[in-house]
């Protein structure tokens, strides 16, 4: 099956759900989310079977002009699978979270206004999938905006909740600013290379005499993408928006939006970071500075946080720092060696597993104990030891303890950086890892060594959340020792 059917199917599913949701009368809207997840699972299976024109050159469709806008390689397939998996999990999280959605959109007990939440996520997923296949700047920009605009709505979805609305306004204003940077940067890149096609960039680069306008453009684009991935200098929105947005949206933001930003970053920078490009040296310096600043800020600012969602926000900045470090230590894929795109993809895959697991638990703590502070996790080990054990594993993995998935990801990033000889950056990253141990294990301490409040709910997971958490925790441990399956995908 040609790969471009995947996005078409996702959009079709989204429209179908919108229409069905509007015309099928039902008190309980969970079926919308569940059928969205089921549909996306079907598309996920198809994603494994999808092929590009280079795989089947004899077919009619292989010569269609559509391939001028669309590329399909191993990295594109990986990020499509990634987006679909993330969206399916977040949809399930939203189904279990719908009590709170109902409370803050309409009134408790009426799910009248929660039906559109699920299709919007499906559309955001389509945007991420298109982004993974974009081969020119115009297409990439439109796909990025599709993702961002879906997120504007998803963040502000709880319209009876002042925190969610505030987060929405902040996200829209800063998002618009970053979009302005992105477009302005793309204009400069287009002006200095004369092309929007990423595949024509190397040719334009080799004929270039004065690289200064191009560098200016790249710097502006980096600011724009920095917003999407949550890197310095556009990291300011993350804590507030993470805290205010509904928890499934926060989870989707921290995994989906970040992955979308990084695939865009990799696609965009690939021609400029290639061996022999005139801007390679300056660009690596720039990326290393951004990565260092992001690592320091994310990790150190996370230490004093008491709100767990805010803490996860800063932790997401810190992870963006590690990912940027892998990009700064740029190496293309070679025989038997992992390149930067592969390492970033692997790191994001482990990040998905760990982060979504934590958010599944956080969403239920938010509902059942009515709060998201670290203190709301007090004594979880006494009230629900199994859950506390799972969360401990996930936190250890986020910190990067050996034998967990998080360790392998960090290890690959560090080995890339060592080979590139980015020693000052490695030093900063070690400080970051050390700080990470402190603030991630703070939660572990609250769960195991602090007594629960007398009226604290025991926190029982509903069926979907429980299945998802068990799977994700198991994956965290399995991927920590047996990670070949993911690398085979790349």
């Amino acid at each position, binding site marked *: 099956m040609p790969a471009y059917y995947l996005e078409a199917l996702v*959009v079709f599913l989204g*429209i179908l759900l*919108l229409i069905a949701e509007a015309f099928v009368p039902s008190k309980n809207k969970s079926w919308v989310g569940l059928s969205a997840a089921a549909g996306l699972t079907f598309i996920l299976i198809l994603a494994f079977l999808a092929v590009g024109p280079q795989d089947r050159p004899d077919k009619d469709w292989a010569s269609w*002009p*559509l391939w*001028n*806008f*669309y590329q399909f390689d191993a990295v594109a397939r990986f990020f499509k699978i990634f987006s679909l998996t993330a969206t399916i999990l977040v949809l399930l999280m939203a189904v279990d979270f719908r009590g709170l959605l109902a409370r803050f959109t*309409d*009134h408790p007990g*009426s799910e*009248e*206004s929660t039906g*559109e939440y699920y*299709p*919007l996520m499906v*559309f955001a997923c*389509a*945007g991420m999938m*298109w982004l993974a296949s974009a081969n020119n700047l*115009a*297409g990439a*920009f*439109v*796909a990025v*905006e*599709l993702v961002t*605009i*879906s997120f*504007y*709505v998803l963040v*502000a*979805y709880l*319209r009876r909740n002042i925190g969610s609305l505030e987060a929405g306004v902040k996200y829209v204003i800063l998002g618009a600013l970053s979009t302005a940077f992105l477009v302005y940067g793309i204009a400069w890149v287009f002006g*200095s290379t004369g092309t929007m096609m990423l595949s024509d960039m190397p040719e334009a680069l080799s004929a270039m*005499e*004065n690289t*200064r*306008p191009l560098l*200016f453009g790249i710097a502006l684009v980096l600011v724009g993408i920095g917003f999407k991935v949550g890197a310095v200098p556009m990291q300011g929105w993350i804590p507030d928006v993470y805290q205010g947005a509904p928890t499934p949206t926060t989870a989707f933001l921290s995994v989906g939006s970040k992955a979308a930003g990084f695939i865009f970053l990799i696609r965009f920078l690939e021609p400029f970071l290639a061996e022999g490009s005139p801007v390679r040296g300056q660009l690596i310096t720039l990326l290393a500075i951004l990565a260092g600043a992001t690592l320091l800020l994310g990790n150190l600012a996370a230490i004093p946080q008491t709100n767990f969602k805010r803490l996860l926000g800063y932790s997401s900045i810190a992870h963006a720092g590690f990912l940027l470090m892998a990009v700064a230590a740029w190496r293309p894929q070679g025989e038997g060696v992992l390149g930067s795109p592969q390492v970033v993809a692997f790191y994001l895959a482990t990040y998905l597993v760990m982060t979504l697991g934590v958010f599944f638990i956080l969403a239920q703590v938010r509902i059942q104990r009515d709060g998201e502070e670290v203190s709301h996790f007090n004594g979880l080990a006494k009230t629900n030891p199994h859950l506390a054990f799972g969360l401990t594993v996930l936190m250890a993995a986020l910190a990067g303890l050996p034998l967990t998935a998080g360790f392998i990801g960090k290890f690959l990033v560090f080995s890339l950086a060592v080979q590139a000889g980015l020693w000052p950056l490695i030093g900063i990253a070690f400080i970051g890892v050390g700080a990470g141990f402190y603030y991630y294990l703070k939660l572990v301490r609250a769960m195991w060594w602090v007594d629960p409040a007398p009226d604290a709910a025991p926190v029982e997971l509903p069926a979907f959340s429980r299945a998802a958490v068990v799977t994700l925790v198991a994956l965290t441990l399995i991927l920590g020792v047996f990670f070949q399956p993911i690398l085979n995908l790349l």
Partner: protein
Amino acid sequence: MPQYLFWFFATIMLIGGLAVVSFKNPVASAISVVTCFLGLAGLFIGLSAFFVGIIQILVYAGAVMVLFLFIIMLLDIRAEKARNLSWLATAGGVGLVAFFTIQLVGVLGEPLPNQQAPPLDPETMAAAAENFREDTRIAQSLGEGGLPDVHLIGHKLFTEYNLPLQILGVLLLVATVGVVVLSKRQPERES
């Protein structure tokens, strides 16, 4: 475009832009945005981008800003109270603008590859007509020395930017759904 016209329209834009942020009355600010758009339209037309220039006036100055004015009047937004600008925020803003300007001057200070746009004379048009099939409207119009810019832009959009255009369709759908979701009338609480 004659140089003095460029400076004229650029000055209008700058004055409009400054006025947007300095007026305290939102209606005055909105009108200043219109002024800014008019200057921009002048620049576009001066660069022979007639279609974009006209659209700038019709859509942005005409439709978008009128909608803004409607909303300002409907919501009855009052003039802003005197702002207490903190010293640090002002310094930060000025510093950022200065930094950006220095960057821009540094980039523009070097000799850039200066490509002159081809003049819009009948010979250029006739030469461009050869890129299109003979029986098409675009080829005929170009051959007669006209500039079918609406057709040309449409042609480019639907051939070279076809997929992005369709993604834009999905984007508009999402935006529409989003607006309805966030602003639909709240049902009365049953209590």
